[in-house]
């Protein structure tokens, strides 16, 4: 690794939407857990320190503010990826990536010694970064089904009706939480230079 050699990792709009999304998801998940507590789906409640809003009405205020931030920011991210082809070239999981999934899992599980050949992102990363916007879309659509079960009744029935849409809304949230855990782990493994690049755009070149 030659010192001082840097490569441009994340365009400005990707960095911006990444952090806005972080704030939006933090608001949505914590206020959402407080809303969950008003009528738990299962036999457990969320601990208060994980929740935002103090009570149901406060949580709803946060949630229905955060939804705009989440939706507008997500739309900007998708639009940028489509128009710039940034995402299509780097993070979109495609047919040709399927065969690379197994070797990557083997590598992560230490069954395989050497890192399989990959571009900027490996097939597993592509799979994760392609699923997560789909989970975002799922959250938004199930959220609309719960916010407007009458005005958007066909959408709500697509998710099995009001009560089932609640479960789906929760499952998508769980998806974000699992992604977040894996994401943080990978960021730690990748090291400081990589972490800095989500703020500055640049990271130290690895070769």
């Amino acid at each position: 690794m030659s010192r001082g050699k840097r490569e441009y990792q994340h365009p400005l709009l990707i960095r911006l939407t990444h952090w806005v999304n972080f704030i939006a998801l933090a608001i949505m998940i914590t206020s959402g857990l407080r809303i969950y507590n008003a009528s738990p789906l299962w036999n457990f409640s969320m601990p208060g320190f994980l929740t935002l809003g103090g009570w149901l009405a406060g949580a709803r205020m946060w949630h229905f503010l955060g939804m705009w931030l989440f939706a507008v920011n997500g739309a900007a991210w998708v639009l940028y990826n489509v128009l710039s082809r940034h995402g299509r070239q780097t993070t979109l999981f495609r047919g040709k990536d399927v065969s690379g999934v197994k070797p990557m899992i083997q590598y992560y599980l230490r069954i395989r010694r050497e890192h399989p050949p990959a571009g900027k992102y490996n097939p597993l990363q592509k799979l994760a970064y392609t699923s997560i916007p789909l989970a975002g879309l799922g959250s938004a659509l199930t959220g609309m089904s719960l916010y407007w079960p009458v005005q958007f009744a066909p959408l709500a029935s697509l998710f099995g009706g009001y009560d089932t849409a609640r479960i789906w809304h929760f499952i998508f949230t769980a998806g974000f939480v699992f992604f977040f855990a894996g994401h943080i782990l990978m960021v730690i493994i990748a090291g400081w230079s990589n972490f800095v690049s989500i703020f500055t755009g640049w990271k130290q070149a690895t070769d």
Partner: protein
Amino acid sequence: MADDTESRSTGEGETGGRLTRRSVLKLSPLVLLAGCDMTPEGRTESFLRSFQKFNDWFQSKVFDSSRLSTEYSASELTPEDGFRVNGKDDDPPDIDPATWTLAVEGLVARPGTYTLAHIAALPKRVMNTRHVCVEGWSMVPRWGGTPLGEFLRMAGADPGAKYLSVESADDYTTSYDMPSALHPQTLLCYEAYDKPLTLPHGAPVRIVMPTKLGYKSAKWIRKLIVTNENTGGYWEDQGYDWFAGI
């Protein structure tokens, strides 16, 4: 007393076991002040409340007055033993269905007091619609009553008025935009499951509004006011969204 809504301000009334709804309500100001819960206060709260006004406005634009809430078949009804009671208090108010009257005030050609007989003489609508509580649960009861729009026309309500305010025998209040009040599924409801409404469910007459969250379906109503002033409501003044369309 009031209405099908969040009585468990902390969301722990029933799942938490011991606390009764009333004791939770009494406790809630203390619970809310406990800093770690981050109940919106001061500037944060006023910002959130202004944003909530924007969402109310947006909801009023999304609301389609000709769109009906799905009406379910008899087999999809919530069984009668699952017809859930919820409200701001544990006990219903003292109310005598025999002497009950409904006062109508404000921008109406024929203000005064109306009886259940006046209401029941109007066209009747029976519907199996989903009642969605702000807490997140829902049920599909079988409601029966007079469309509120029919009653307002009989009383000569000003069709240009903007709002309808409601007062209940338990001092519960709420208010509606006129298009929602005139929606064909908005009922002056006096029956559930083909029987006269029972006291815990708001007898003798309650509002049922399947296009809005449950706290808009006020029980034990005793006064309607047609007005151009938005008078808010019991839960709305505490932070719940006013339009509450679903």
